[in-house]
């Protein structure tokens, strides 16, 4: 079996027993990236081809590949291993990092022209912890500009394609990270999730992606979109790999004032305990109208599977879930309009010259931001402006309380809640870009957990055909939501389901992702 097909846990075991070196593992992934991803494999940092030069066979998961640094890091780990040094549990395993987290030595663009070429002078806490754990970063992944989007089509550097079907989107905003893991261009990746930006791309690419409890993974060095919702988390091809990666990056950080100063749960201790005796709640409001028949059918079979595994299925209601999306599309743009004020042509990135500072600010932002970012900055600026704040941001924050209360009540009747992750399977490139609200509806099932701050993950539940293409077989995600700080329970349910389903997270039948 090719090294790129192995899980992070398998690679870590092989590395620990000296069956393979970290350098060999990194090289296998770099070779595959060079062959399939649409990068120019020259120099210390490989760049993605310019958008106009990308062709329809390029996955385009990476914006920058830190090839030289990754090889050097791998060799250092190999030397330390031979010398008998104590190494981290995933030492030498490669990882793809979403381009919204800072890392020295390579650009951080957030998928935006306004940050083109900016090289950050410091590492994010997540980056620092990965380095301390001897995980090798392969590069920075493509994303919707400033994480605003559900398809990765809002990247200024061209869209990422779904390894299952290169004519379809990988979801977003962490579509590059998801496509890297699904396309065997990395066994692990870090994404960020504000309203579903890890879970929805995980669902659409047939992998595991988790949004941890808000506040348990530091936001220091994560370029802010909506500060009260942004949370970094893992992508992997197995539940155990995702739990192990989250374990490495979680924990209190005094450099993030919203970081939760409490112990986070051990995610691995009871991972294999099964679902026997657990109450699994289905949510009345997160099914029905708007969900594709193939998604609903796959979800129904997932419930039967959980029941067969010994879970008790109960139905619960989140009466205010329907208000989640309207609240989200006030809160997130409001916070974004404030956070993105820092991109003013003064401290980093692009500047468009003009006679006065104010004109320079406005010209720079007009040239540097894409249409979706402008749209959200405008919504947020309006929602926070004098006379509107109470009716919009404050009212949306009250709805957020109602949704959090709904979850508290639901978790008295059920230990975890499940739903489809996304109402649709992966859709065709360009099919939803003209209608902003149609695109926003992708987040309908993921936003409630974001507003409540609770942990939620997506794992493969099976495949279904796209409604417009009956012969297709595309991944469907199952979302598992757990109470605050019960990320362990979420992983435990997911692990039991995964073992029973035996889903093969390898896209088949397409030359771009065929195994060499």
């Amino acid at each position, binding site marked *: 079996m090719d090294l790129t097909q192995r899980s992070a846990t398998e690679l870590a075991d092989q590395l620990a027993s000296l069956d393979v070196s970290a350098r060999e593992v990194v090289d296998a992934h770099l070779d595959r990236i060079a062959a399939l991803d649409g990068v120019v494999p020259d120099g210390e940092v490989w760049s993605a081809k310019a958008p106009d030069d990308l062709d329809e066979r390029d996955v385009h998961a990476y914006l920058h590949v830190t090839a030289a640094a990754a090889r050097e890091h791998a060799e250092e780990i190999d030397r330390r291993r031979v010398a008998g040094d104590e190494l981290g549990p995933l030492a030498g395993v490669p990882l793809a990092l979403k381009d919204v987290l800072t890392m020295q030595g390579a650009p951080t663009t957030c998928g935006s022209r306004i940050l083109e070429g900016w*090289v*950050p*002078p410091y590492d994010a806490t997540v980056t620092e912890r990965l380095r301390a754990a001897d995980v090798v970063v392969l590069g920075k992944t493509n994303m919707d500009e400033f994480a605003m989007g559900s398809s990765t089509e809002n990247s200024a550097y061209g869209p990422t394609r779904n390894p299952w079907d290169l004519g379809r989107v990988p979801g977003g905003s962490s579509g590059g990270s998801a496509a890297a893991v699904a396309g065997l261009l990395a066994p692990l990746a870090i994404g960020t999730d504000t309203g579903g930006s890890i879970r929805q791309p995980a669902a659409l690419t047939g992998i595991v992606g988790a949004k941890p*409890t*808000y*506040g348990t993974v530091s936001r220091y060095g994560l370029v802010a979109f909506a500060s009260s919702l942004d949370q970094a988390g893992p992508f992997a091809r197995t539940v155990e790999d995702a739990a192990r990666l989250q374990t490495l990056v979680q924990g209190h950080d*005094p450099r993030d*004032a*919203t970081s939760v*100063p409490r112990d986070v749960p051990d995610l691995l201790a009871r991972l294999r305990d099964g679902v026997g005796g657990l109450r699994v709640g289905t949510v009345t409001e997160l099914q029905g109208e708007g969900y594709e028949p193939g998604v609903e059918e796959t979800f129904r079979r997932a419930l039967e599977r959980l029941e067969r595994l010994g879970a008790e299925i109960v139905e619960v209601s989140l009466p*205010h879930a329907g*208000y989640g999306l*309207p*609240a989200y*599309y*006030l809160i997130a743009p409001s916070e974004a*309009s404030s956070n993105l004020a820092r991109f*003013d042509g*003064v*401290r*980093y*990135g692009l500047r468009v*010259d*003009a*006679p*006065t*500072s*104010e*004109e*320079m600010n*406005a*010209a720079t*932002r*007009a040239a540097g*931001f894409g249409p979706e970012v*402008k*749209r959200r*900055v*405008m*919504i947020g*600026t*309006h*929602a926070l*402006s004098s006379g509107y704040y109470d*009716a*919009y941001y*404050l*009212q*949306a*924050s*009250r*709805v957020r*309380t109602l949704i*959090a209360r709904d979850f508290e009540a639901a978790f008295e009747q059920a230990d975890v809640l499940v739903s489809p992750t996304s109402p649709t399977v992966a859709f065709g490139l360009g099919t939803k870009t003209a209608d*902003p*609200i149609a695109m*926003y509806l992708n987040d309908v099932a993921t936003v409630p957990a974001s*507003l*409540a701050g609770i942990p939620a993950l997506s794992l493969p539940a099976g495949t279904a055909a796209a409604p417009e293409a009956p012969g297709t077989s595309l991944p469907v995600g199952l979302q598992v939501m757990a109470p*605050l700080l019960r990320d362990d329970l979420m992983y435990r349910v997911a692990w039991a389901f995964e073992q029973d389903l035996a889903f093969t997270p390898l896209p088949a039948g397409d030359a771009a992702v065929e195994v060499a």
Partner: protein
Amino acid sequence: VALSSDEVRHVAMLARLALTDDEIATLAPQLSEILAYAEQVGEVAAEDVPPTTHPFALRNVTRPDERRPSLPAAAVLAGAPAVEEDRFAVPRIVAEEA
């Protein structure tokens, strides 16, 4: 409520975005539609419901008042579009007197 082109222009000024007339014309109906959708939040949550911004309601987060090294100025200035005398350089802020 539909936003007029003038209202969209006012918001663009507040947001420091030099939008073109075409962009204004595209955004006016889009923003109106999105805000009409978002206004559903007014249907629930009376004033006695407190707002939530963090699931753990942290208050007064402080750290010890200790001196710590900061980033070297040269590293920070290296990413700036214009620098003069170890400072960020910007165009004129105050208009010349007539």
